[in-house]
């Protein structure tokens, strides 16, 4: 079941690599949030405990409801255009993603010979980190950089579930809080930039200097 969810996660990463729309990024973030919530609830199906509810519930509220809504609100308020404005062609980007997938799966299979890891969730998490970094590098819009950062964070989360079956709950909640605060800070920064400066193209942001 963990493998099935991880494969769906990989498919959502491929979709991120081809879609040209900002709305689709938000939808994929929401979808990944749902996948991670189900993934966290899996070990607790047999024995119920209060911790089984707290972390998935927090994750669900933050990743599926609050953050996507907040990003949508920013998009609406700042009147951001619908396309993502890539710096390289989407075709090359997808090729890059495919090659990184191949390398990551190879690395994961080599690693699994010496340490105890679940290959598919491990590789999917790793791949999400790579795709998140690629999104940040190859997209011009600032709001997409926020989305790329969130994909990266989802990857780290998945990575964590692959390495240890049960995560230390306080650490996870701490990470979630961090991400939440960072997204808010980015939103506020975007608002600030928009009030003094037109457009969010990172290639012309250097004009902002004193």
């Amino acid at each position, binding site marked *: 079941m963990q493998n099935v969810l991880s494969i769906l996660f990989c498919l959502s990463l491929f979709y991120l690599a081809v879609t040209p729309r900002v709305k689709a990024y938000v939808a994929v973030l929401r979808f990944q949030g749902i996948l991670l919530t189900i993934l966290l609830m899996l070990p607790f199906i047999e024995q119920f405990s209060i911790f089984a509810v707290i972390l998935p519930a927090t994750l669900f509220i933050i990743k599926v409801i609050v953050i996507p809504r907040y990003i949508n609100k920013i998009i609406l308020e700042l009147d951001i255009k619908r396309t993502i404005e890539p710096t390289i062609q989407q075709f090359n980007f*997808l090729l890059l993603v*495919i090659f990184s997938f191949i390398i990551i799966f190879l690395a994961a299979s080599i690693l699994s010979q010496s340490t105890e890891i679940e290959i598919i969730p491990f590789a999917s998490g790793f791949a999400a980190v790579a795709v998140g970094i690629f999104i940040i590098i190859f997209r011009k819009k600032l709001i997409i950089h926020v989305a790329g950062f969130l994909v990266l964070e989802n990857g780290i989360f998945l990575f964590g579930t692959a390495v240890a079956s049960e995560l230390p709950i306080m650490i996870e909640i701490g990470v979630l809080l961090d991400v939440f605060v960072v997204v808010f800070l980015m939103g506020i920064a975007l608002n600030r930039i928009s009030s003094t400066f037109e457009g969010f193209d990172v290639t012309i942001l250097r004009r902002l200097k004193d």
Partner: protein
Amino acid sequence: MEVVQILQGIISLILILGLSPLFVGLVNKQKAIYTGRAGASILQPYYELKKLMKKETINANSSSFISTIAPLINLIAVAAAAAMLPISFARPLISFEGDIILFAYMLGLARFFQVLAAMDIGSSFEGMGAAREATFAVFAEPIFFFTIGSIAFISGFTSIYDIYHSIRLDNISFVVFIIVCSISVFILAVTECSRMPVDDPNTHLELTMIHEVMILDNSGIDLFLYQYSSYIKLFIYVILEASFFYPFAVQSYTLGIIIFVVVIIILSAALAAVETVTSRFKMKNIPHYLLFATAIGILNLLIYTFTK
């Protein structure tokens, strides 16, 4: 026993050849209903084929013998590919180890002659359509080999019939592979048969057409052969996808037929829905769409290779 198997194979082939226009009619009817029209009868493709048979065949002055033989070779190659597909539990007419490669290249041969005939006519429109068809075929071929190839790896067989028979739906990882593969086979079907997100079958502007523009100068029996083979091709891909969902573990002939019919009706509804809600992509966006399907196939293969 031998005779019964051959008879079953012949019946399967006749079913595929006979029912393929009906499937197109079904899709068109549902498309009409979704867009609020009454729509033509389900049997309309048969009437159109009958009309074409009566018409006179005219070839362009500049065309050579290629134009006269290409439609027939096209139809025969597609029919030979159709003879390799199992319907329900019957063994197909042509079935041997490694026939998935023959299957792919029979369809490739059909496409090759169609492209050749289009260039043979000597009109710039046909040449443009041929160039597009060839370009997108380059991207569509890896989809087939990565998708069906990964299923072949998982099952350990290289014959279409054996591959489908080794599918067990009680194995959860098999279910995932099937779902993932059926997405990319759907994209493959849409591309190869020039359906909506890649090509608009109803467009009347030569600059935007892919498949239709190649047969623009054909008439009469030639056009009949091209149209009929395109209907069969669509049905072949639909069966390729529908076969994933047979409960082969059950091994009952009547149940197989019922499930086959239900899955095909569901697929026609899905195809009509996709064609209703999407518009045609820009030409430059089509390679991303096809590479996405290839990526799914590669993912399947990676997962299989590194988790065994």
